[in-house]
């Protein structure tokens, strides 16, 4: 029974959070459309249901805060008061508080929030609205659907987010079963299945090669033919299973995008800008890990666009642009990648200014900056310590941000590109692989063994000879276009072997956040997409190993953890 209760509470938190996540975008929609009965009812229902369940579970603070918000929504819905800014603010604040309270429930940290200010704000907003409303509604957009019958509450006509539920009006609902055919499954369980599927793939690979050999040797044997056939069928099934499990971890980007309308609303109000946000492709599905990591970089890019990209309304009018700035976010799946594009129609990135700034900050030499292509100059904005804002504002321009954007995306094995036209706007284009279980790698050989390096942080490769290396304070270093990078042979760095120094023929230049270094390898074998398998019994961090994979020819190859390697390498360089 106690377990049952725990489960119910966990479900309650998850479901309430999902419900509240839908509230923010609804408000933004409401502000655009005016008092839309359907939206008002949805808003009412959101807080109402959370309150109802919280009551059962004895979470009184949640009940109180939700009750206040619900009262406001009910009065607005029933036309008793007109919607106003203070009311919206009070409800949004309440929703924020509810989220906080839910988090405490989930974390079981027993922290008690002071809900008094929020409850107070609700009361005041309500009192002000009630005083104002007796006769004509004061908001211009209000009164739209006042004449609709008030009781019973009008059932919203086929809500567009009603999900798989049926279309209203049809007497004979068709896909009635669908909506209930979802299960909440803990991620850990799915991950276990994923692991086991990977395990099975390894066994399959082994079987494949055995069957192949047997087939060659005893090709005429009836049983061997049967075996070869069965194994090749297993091959297909195993691949399918692995793919199916991967898709189980996928969630729509909506989960992240839904937070943006509210953020854009708050930010643009704060900065005195008028912004129209357009979101499309929010139903694109990505791995859960992507959902968790992509939010921050996107928020940062949006802030940047509002703060630096979009001009103030007066300036826009003077330039003959519509007064309202536009930011659009679009997501789609292209092949094995997810593309997220974020564009604004602001002033664009001033390349000359970027060049100047980068030189000033000592990120590149003046001569280097002059020689760089426009595309490369654009890339400078992602360097740590770069910021073009003259004065650090509250929101962006602290020079920590763009590099974080890049670092987070690199963590997801993705990449980000910028294109910009002065006066027309800027577009950031983020590319992320569909699944994190398959990553593009650079296959190399070092110290006699083959390794896979995740491709995303690899900046470039170069052929080198002994004389390209110089000795700086007892450490080896490589000079690349006038810049010095710490240099290590890969096999030395992972303490694999120490067979003489400096006989590597290639340098792989790696950039990870603010860390840059070169890895010496003997041979570049080419690019390969590999499936990561976790290796048990090996301390991944200590060994600088992300996992292992099996190459097409059946060899087990370690995938190097460049981030952990970077930490170790840079630590040594500092010492």
């Amino acid at each position, binding site marked *: 029974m106690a377990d049952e209760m725990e489960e119910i509470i966990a479900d309650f938190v998850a479901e309430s959070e999902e419900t509240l996540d839908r509230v923010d975008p609804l408000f933004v929609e409401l502000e655009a459309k005016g008092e839309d009965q359907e939206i008002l009812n949805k808003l009412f*229902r959101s807080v*109402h249901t959370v309150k109802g369940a919280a009551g059962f579970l004895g979470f009184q603070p949640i009940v109180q805060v939700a009750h206040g918000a619900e009262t406001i929504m009910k009065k607005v819905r029933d036309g008793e008061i007109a919607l106003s800014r203070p009311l919206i603010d009070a409800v949004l604040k309440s929703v924020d508080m509810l989220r906080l309270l839910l988090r405490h429930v989930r974390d079981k940290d027993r922290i008690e929030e002071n809900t008094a200010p929020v409850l107070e704000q609700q009361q005041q907003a309500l009192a002000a609205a009630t005083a104002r409303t007796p006769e004509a509604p004061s908001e211009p957009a209000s009164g739209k659907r006042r004449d609709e019958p008030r009781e019973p*509450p009008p059932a*919203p006509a086929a809500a567009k987010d009603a999900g798989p*539920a049926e279309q209203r009006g049809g007497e004979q*609902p068709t896909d*009635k079963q669908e909506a209930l055919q979802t299960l909440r499954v803990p991620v850990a369980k799915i991950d276990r299945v994923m692991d086991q599927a990977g395990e099975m793939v390894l066994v399959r690979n082994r079987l494949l090669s055995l069957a192949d050999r047997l087939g060659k040797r005893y090709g005429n044997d009836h049983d061997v033919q049967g075996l070869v056939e069965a194994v090749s069928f297993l091959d297909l099934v195993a691949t399918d299973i692995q793919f199916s499990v991967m898709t189980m971890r996928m969630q729509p980007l909506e989960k992240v995008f839904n937070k943006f309308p509210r953020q854009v609303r708050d930010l643009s109000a704060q900065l005195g800008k008028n912004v129209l946000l357009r979101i499309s492709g929010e139903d694109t599905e990505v791995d859960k890990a992507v959902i968790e990591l992509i939010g921050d970089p996107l928020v940062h890019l949006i802030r940047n666009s509002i703060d630096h990209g979009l001009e103030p309304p007066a300036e826009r009018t003077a330039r003959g642009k519509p007064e309202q700035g536009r930011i659009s976010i679009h997501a789609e799946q292209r092949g094995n990648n997810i593309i997220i594009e974020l564009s604004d129609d602001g002033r664009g990135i001033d390349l000359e200014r970027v060049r100047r700034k980068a030189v000033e900050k000592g990120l590149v030499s003046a001569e280097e900056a002059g020689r760089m292509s426009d595309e490369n100059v654009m890339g400078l904005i992602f360097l740590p310590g770069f910021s073009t804002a003259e004065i650090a504002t509250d929101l962006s321009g602290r020079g920590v941000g763009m590099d974080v954007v890049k670092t987070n995306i690199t963590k997801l094995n993705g990449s980000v590109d910028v294109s910009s036209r002065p006066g027309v706007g800027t577009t950031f284009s983020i590319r992320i692989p569909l699944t994190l279980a398959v990553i593009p790698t650079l296959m190399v050989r070092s110290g006699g063994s083959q390794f896979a390096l995740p491709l995303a942080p690899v900046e470039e490769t170069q052929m080198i000879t002994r004389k390209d290396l110089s000795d700086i304070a007892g450490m080896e270093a490589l000079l690349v276009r006038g810049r010095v990078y710490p240099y290590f042979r890969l096999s030395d760095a992972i303490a694999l072997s120490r067979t003489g120094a400096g006989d590597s023929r290639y340098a792989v230049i790696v950039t990870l956040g603010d860390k840059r270094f070169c890895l010496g390898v003997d041979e570049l074998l080419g690019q390969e997409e590999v499936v990561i398998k976790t290796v048990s019994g090996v301390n991944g961090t200590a060994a600088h190993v992300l996992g292992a994979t099996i190459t097409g020819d059946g060899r087990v190859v370690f995938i190097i953890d460049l981030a952990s390697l970077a930490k170790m390498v840079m630590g040594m360089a500092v010492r």
Partner: protein
Amino acid sequence: MPDPKMKILVVDDFSTMRRIVKTVLKQLGFENIEEAEDGAQAFAKLQNNGFGFMVSDWNMPNMDGLDLLKKVRADAALKDLPILMVTAEAEKDKVITAIQAGVNNYIVKPFTAEVFKEKMDAIFEKLAKK
């Protein structure tokens, strides 16, 4: 008291609430429970499925509890289905409407298993007298 094998439909758009109601029903010894997410889905499920009792929330998308109630009462095959309506206190003033529309009883959130049992017993005792 009704047969513990009786088939019961729990209607609520919030899955946590469905779970809570189900837990209460299980405490009372009922095991044969199905769920629906809104009135429309519930009405579809009720067709020819031999349900003996329905517990429905009021405020739901697509078709709310009141509309569902009216639809059930207007349906020749379903019109006698005992229905317990779950309401919040915000909807208390509308309970009259539900009673006029033919609900057997209502219960205000949050409730305990005991109160739920009382309401259920009241419904089935009344029916037995008829």
